[in-house]
């Protein structure tokens, strides 16, 4: 008996050690590329180009960041993206709450029919071209509206929010309020929304991530460069490798230009990604709720 217990403890200890090692390895695999990018962005261009950066910045400089912030395209793109994200997320939340609340009410006549109408759009869509033609016919091409309105609502998020309302707002609360003469508008505004902080935070984050990272809609709907969001400018520089020569103005020789070009990419990646990476840990504790509701009860 005694011997057995020790053997088991041994097996468990081995498991704990292996588990710890595996998880650490996973963490490193995820973290290393990110850490490398940050270090490279602070290193000198010659160090980046000759592959001398491994973990820590080599010959630290801010050259990359200086080049990034000196570029008017990038700065304007950044501002545009902030606008699209804030305005777009606001519209998204409004539409989602407006759709989810009535659908959460058992006494909302026609809710099954409306639900079907909504859910069907998740399974079948008219496709890229008809949507493009619609946006074009509405005169939204090359306006900020094309960045805000066509994606105003995600049915998936409506379902998550509806389920949250159904499961966390007690029916008695509605009955009591109605007896006191509270209207549906008031009830939603004064009772439901204040009780829905966590889900609003998660859904707002999901929408905001979508706006911040959006490039495709901008690519097909926008033509004027002054409306471009950051991701589209980033695409030209990172993926198409098209860098405006003005951005490299300081560099004299061809080699220095080549170096700055690479350095600039790393700095741009950091500048673009940091805002979201700073925000999500604050909302992280609500993820479980949002994800659970969405996948199980949808």
């Amino acid at each position, binding site marked *: 008996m005694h011997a057995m217990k020790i053997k088991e403890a041994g097996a468990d200890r081995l498991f704990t050690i292996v588990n710890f090692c595996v998880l650490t390895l996973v963490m490193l695999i995820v973290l290393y590329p990110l850490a490398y*990018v940050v270090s490279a962005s602070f290193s000198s261009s010659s160090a980046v180009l000759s592959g001398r950066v491994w973990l820590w910045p080599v010959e630290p400089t801010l050259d990359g960041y200086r080049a990034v912030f000196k570029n008017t395209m990038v700065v304007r793109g950044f501002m545009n993206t902030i606008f699209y994200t804030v305005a777009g997320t606001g519209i998204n939340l409004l539409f989602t709450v407006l759709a989810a609340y009535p659908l959460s009410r058992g006494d909302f006549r026609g809710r099954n029919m409306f639900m079907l109408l909504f859910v069907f759009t998740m399974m079948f869509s008219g496709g890229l071209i008809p949507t493009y033609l619609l946006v074009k016919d509405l005169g939204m091409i090359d306006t900020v509206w094309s960045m805000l309105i066509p994606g105003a609502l995600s049915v998936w998020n409506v379902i998550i929010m509806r389920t949250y309302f159904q499961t966390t707002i007690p029916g008695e609360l509605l009955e009591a309020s109605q007896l006191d003469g509270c209207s549906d508008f008031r009830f939603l505004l004064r009772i439901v929304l204040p009780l829905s902080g966590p889900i609003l935070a998660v859904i707002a984050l999901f929408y905001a991530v979508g706006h911040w990272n959006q490039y495709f809609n901008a690519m097909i709907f926008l033509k004027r460069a002054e409306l471009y969001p950051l991701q589209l400018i980033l695409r030209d520089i990172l993926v198409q490798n098209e860098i405006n020569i003005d951005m490299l103005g300081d560099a004299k020789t061809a080699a220095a230009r080549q170096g700055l070009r690479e350095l600039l990419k790393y700095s741009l990646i950091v500048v673009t990604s940091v805002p979201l990476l700073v925000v999500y840990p604050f909302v992280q504790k609500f993820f479980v709720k949002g994800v659970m509701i969405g996948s199980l009860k949808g």
Partner: protein
Amino acid sequence: MTKLNLWKDITRKWQLYALFALPLIYIIVFKYVPMYGAQIAFKDFNVTKGITGSPWVGFAQFERFFHSHEFWRLLRNTLVVSFYALVASFPFPIILALGLNYVKNERFKKSVQMITYAPYFISLVVLVGLLLQFLDPRTGLVNTLLGWFGLGPYHFMAQASWFKSIYVWSHVWQNTGFACIIYLAALSGIDPALHEAAVMDGATKVQRMRHIDLPGILPIAVILLILNTGQMLETGFEKILLMQNPLNLRTSEVIDTYVYKVGLVSQAMNFSYATAIGLFKAVIGFILLIIVNQTAKQLKQESLW
């Protein structure tokens, strides 16, 4: 209930309908109008004549697509890349969740979670940018490493044979952490009494994992697998588009990217042809979803709707 009472009931709750009006209009305009517009797949669309005014051509656009030399290549690429991604990304979130579940140290657990979630928030443009930087034949980290062993340099992004693996494994890197949330939640829902009883009976952690945790999360795993199968054809089209270059097109061109190119990029923009190809995929996807949901019902699993 009589018609009059029904009307009364609705007018009494007019505020609910007022709230619902805006989203309803949105869904009709931005989701159902394009479905109506998809009829141009059966027409020879002409901008001046408009959607309704253009002449019908029946299935001519579809026939053209089925007979084109692109058809089999597109279909094969779409299916292979979807299936590869589906299968490869399935087990890792489960393994990660099972491992995290046995971590006693809260701080270590929180750190692993926070770090593995991070890539989920990185944009596709940045992700593909990272791939290009790391896999660059001259300055990339991967080739520098391979160089130490006397290998390479390889021009990974320019080789058609590498495309699918790069696509799929970068997807795994980006999404595993976030996808594991749901399994962690499911694991926390398992009755602790089961574990206590198992410990009393002298079960090791591996045995508990095998006989308690795994069966505990199996239903969710099956549901998610089914759900993902239904969405399978929704290939990460925006990412593929970013990863494409003339050298890897042979394996990287999928139906969605082709629709985009035929409809919106090429010189001879052909809205009808592109819509027909898109509609073909949408119908296949819809059928897949129905089949998958029926299977789920027969498995007596929770169904999609």
